[in-house]
């Protein structure tokens, strides 16, 4: 019984619940508000924020789980977004690997850079399974909009990702 409560109270269970909320925002409000015709990517932002806050391995796990959930609502093959976001989370975690105590602006720069990379990983992964046609000049516009929106939203999402993934001692 105690073990079950420990699992329910773990940060990974919390992560899945928070990801459901983030995903619901992604498929509703952020799919509807499209600055310059581009959808903001809050699932990607959450993964990047987890990576820059907790490092490579946590970033990769969060990316793989978030990507898997995102895949279930997309029409692309399941697992593709998981791999792309897992790689994105791991890339974001490299910040902690090189700078164990990054400043706030370093985190923001990392969020911007990795968001751009994340938007490149996905069409690359698509083209690897034969769904080509997305690597075109429009990608630059997508990257520009996603980077700007992610920089604006990053402070709030960084707080949420830290709250979600923080270890809590003695949950029972």
């Amino acid at each position, binding site marked *: 019984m105690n073990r079950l409560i420990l699992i329910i109270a773990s940060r990974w269970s919390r992560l899945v619940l928070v990801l459901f909320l983030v995903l619901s925002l*992604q498929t509703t409000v952020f799919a509807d*508000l499209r600055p310059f015709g581009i959808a903001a990517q809050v699932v990607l932002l959450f993964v990047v924020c987890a990576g820059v806050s907790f490092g490579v391995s946590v970033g*990769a796990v969060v990316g793989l789980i978030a990507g*898997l959930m995102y895949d*279930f609502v997309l*029409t692309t093959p399941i697992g593709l977004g998981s791999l792309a976001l897992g790689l994105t989370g791991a890339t974001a975690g490299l910040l902690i690997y090189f700078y164990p105590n990054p400043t706030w602006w370093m985190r923001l720069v990392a969020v911007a850079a990795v968001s751009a990379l994340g*938007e490149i990983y996905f069409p690359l992964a698509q083209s690897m399974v034969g769904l080509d046609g997305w690597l075109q000049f*429009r990608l630059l516009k997508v990257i520009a909009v996603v980077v700007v929106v992610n920089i604006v939203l990053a402070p709030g999402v960084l707080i949420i990702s830290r709250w979600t993934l923080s270890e809590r001692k003695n949950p029972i």
Partner: protein
Amino acid sequence: MANVLSNRRRTIILLALTSIILITLDLQNSSVVSGLRSLFGTVFHPIESVARVVTRPIGNTWHGIADYNNVIDENALLKQRIAQQEGATIAAAASVRLSQELLALNGLPTLAGINTVTAQVIGDSPSNFSQTIEINQGSKSGIRVGMPVLNAAGLIGKITKTFADRSVVMLITDPDFALSVKVVNSPQKVTTTTIARVNPATTSPVIPVDPITSVPDAATTTSTTTTTTIAGFTPSVTTLPSTPTGVSSITIPFASELAVRETGVIEGRGPSRQPTVRFIDNSLRFGEIEAGAPIVTAGGSRSLAPPDILIGKVSRVIERLGSAGPVLEIELVADLSNLSFLRVLLYQPITEKTTP
């Protein structure tokens, strides 16, 4: 600490392998993956619905700020277009009615004989790398994967996923979209043959008529000639005798001068580029394809859409060397950036229908 890292590394490997297995299964159209997707959809749908209700004011505020001027301009433009098209619509409706009657008389299938389900768009694709929309009708309404989806203007896409009460529509612009189509190449000019009633055996020489304006030839007929220049319709000449002179004129276009149809495949190229039609035969009979030639669905026992649904018109012809045939860039008649109410044709080709 080392144990935690080892566990985490194991988790990452496990998740990555799971993803690869899922990709492989999904690309093989595994029913397990479809079931998982359906299950996730069932669990996620209530959460999404709550989020949609809660965030609607945010969306409305955003659209109020960002799109107000566009809506005003669009409204003015639409009013002007409605005024222009009111007359043309009546004439077109009469033509369509006649055409449907003729098809019905000859036992040919028409769109009017296919049941439809009206649906409303409830969401766009959350990703920037898929061109899909979500509609509020699903398998309960008889919708199946592959059925064509139209708006008032023409074809916009096809159903790619169905749930009980919603479906996902892949738009024509998605790079994964492909459908067989017909290019209706309008003849360059119309020639008429005037037959005199007095001596039916005598046929007057062929008289070329300018497709835009035609002046009745007083030497041949005393008639009023009207022509149509609507792209995609075979220009026809209606000759009405102004005075009963004993010579009546009827218009018989030569078979070789009727609109020629050639099939190809339309393929999406993403939202920023126009779809293209490829595999057009480079035959002499088909002639030069000109910008403005309409593109309609080809139909057939293997095609997912019935014949003659309007898709768009040729905006550019890219000639290729050899026998490769041209590539046509298509300007869609439907505005895919502004979709609201749609019709799903409950059509399945004979090859897809399951026997009871």
